[in-house]
């Protein structure tokens, strides 16, 4: 459900940048979304089609680039994907690890006409 407020924020940001660039139309938005950010592509797309109506972003395409969640082992420095079972390092079995990536949630660029 929180994708509605997220999508509204996304529209505000995109329209602001489009206006600054004197755009007639927004054709595409390039988003970077980490696995740990708990945002569903389908849900954002669903709300996008509704909130962008009657704006210069109407009909634009959302492109989601996904960043997988990853962990870094504090023992040996190895970076490995989040596997969802335990957080042990596959190289040295060490359990002292920290999150290394996957919480991105950004609008990287827009493509305008």
């Amino acid at each position, binding site marked *: 459900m929180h994708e*509605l407020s*997220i999508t509204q924020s996304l529209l505000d*940001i995109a329209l602001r*940048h489009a206006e600054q660039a004197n755009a007639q139309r927004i054709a595409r938005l390039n988003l970077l979304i980490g696995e740990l950010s708990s945002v569903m592509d389908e849900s954002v797309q669903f709300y996008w089609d509704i909130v962008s109506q009657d704006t210069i972003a109407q009909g634009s395409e959302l492109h989601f680039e996904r960043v997988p969640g990853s962990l870094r082992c504090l023992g040996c420095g190895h970076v490995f994907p989040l596997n969802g079972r*335990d957080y042990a390092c596959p190289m040295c079995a060490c359990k002292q690890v*920290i*999150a290394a990536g996957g919480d991105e949630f950004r609008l990287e*660029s827009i493509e305008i006409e």
Partner: protein
Amino acid sequence: MTIRVPVVEQILSANDQLAAANRKQLDAAGIFAINIMASPGAGKTSLITRTIEALKEELRIGAVDGDIATTLDADRIAALGVPAVQINTGGTCHLDAPMLQSALPQLPLTELDLLIIENVGNLVCPASFKLGAHRSVLIASVPEGDDKPYKYPVMYRGVDALVLNKIDVLEAFDFDVDYFRQGVEPLNPGLAFFPLSCKTGQGLEQWLAWLRNELEKHTL
């Protein structure tokens, strides 16, 4: 012919800015605010009422209560004689900074030391929306199971303290506290951890001591 315009902006920046404004307003009034998050039924309102009962003689406390519907929780809190505002989110799964902003004027801000914000019961969304509180607290509870940090890692990452409620039923649920904590450690190393039971009162003193201490550190 399309032109690519670089943006590189956090999508929740508008909410973050309002959260910063809330923080400013709280600071100006000399209030220390905590944001309590948990899944439904973990014991948010129970911990809050326990906390208010224990601290209301030494601190002036107010509460903001977020729920999808009803004023049941705010009523429970108001029954303790502290000002409480209910926010009904009307279906939204979390509190956000604008909702808190609209609730603040309904409280006697200059007469409060501690504001306790009870977020909507949910283990996913509240983590993404800053409110402007000074500390975030997550309540896990024994019946939810010891695997929750592995399944809902985001919630465990941004919080300042973790309460494990309902430890009076640890045995009945085969809850492995070590396995639970091993799941939390990589997400949030050294996180303050308070196993307790709102029902029996066991462990509450440590939680209250942490809260007093954080408030004191903040006020200094």
